[in-house]
């Protein structure tokens, strides 16, 4: 289980390969890896977005993410899990968040990956301030349920 907050852009595929190289690559029990990458779009709620600044609460953010991963490990049969989250200034196309879950079985991996992502969205202390195309700044009021047109 690992939680990383990073202030610079990251390549999720390089992060995953490096993380797996430490010990997961040698395991012969992994049957399922479920991954989610959240990326910055150039639109939100009908407006064009040029960039955003992600604020967090150092200490509490890591603590809450650790609890979420532990929750997942307690609910499903997992081998390992990882969350990487950007903070600071972010621009369209850049990854914001990576969630990874390794398990022997796909059901556990799928369920846990989604659980972690939804828990992160509702509980991890991060706040997005968007810079719109018209140069106005606006705080994102709350996270959506994750579907088109809702």
């Amino acid at each position, binding site marked *: 289980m690992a939680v990383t907050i990073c202030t610079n852009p990251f390549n999720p595929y390089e992060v995953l390969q490096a993380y797996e190289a430490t010990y997961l690559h040698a395991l012969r029990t992994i049957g399922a890896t479920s991954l989610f990458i959240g990326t910055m779009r150039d639109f939100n709620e009908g407006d064009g977005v040029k960039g955003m600044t992600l604020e967090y*609460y150092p200490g509490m953010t890591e603590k*809450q993410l650790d609890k979420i991963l532990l929750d997942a490990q307690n609910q499903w049969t997992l081998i390992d899990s990882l969350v990487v989250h950007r903070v600071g200034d972010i621009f369209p196309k850049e990854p914001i968040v990576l969630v990874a879950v390794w398990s022997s079985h796909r059901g556990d991996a799928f369920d846990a990956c989604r659980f972690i992502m939804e828990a992160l969205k509702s509980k991890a202390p991060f706040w997005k301030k968007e810079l719109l195309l018209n140069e106005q700044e606006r705080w994102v*009021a709350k996270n959506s349920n994750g579907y088109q047109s809702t």
Partner: protein
Amino acid sequence: MSIKVRYFASLKESIGRSEDELILTGPLTVYGVWQQANPDKDKPIQALAAVNMDYVDWNCPVSDGDEVAFFPPVTGG
């Protein structure tokens, strides 16, 4: 007792401060901390509270040395 109060994101901006150091007497709840620190401001309707980096209800009691934080709904991910 001494309480550190922290504010984040839009709440920090609307209050105009990122933290307070309060010296208080007597038993107090998180809501009481808000009132002491912001006597002229109602508790923002959607604001969340944490004590020592765990989410708490606003009626949670605070202790000497606690770090109390107030912030709007989270929007990460």
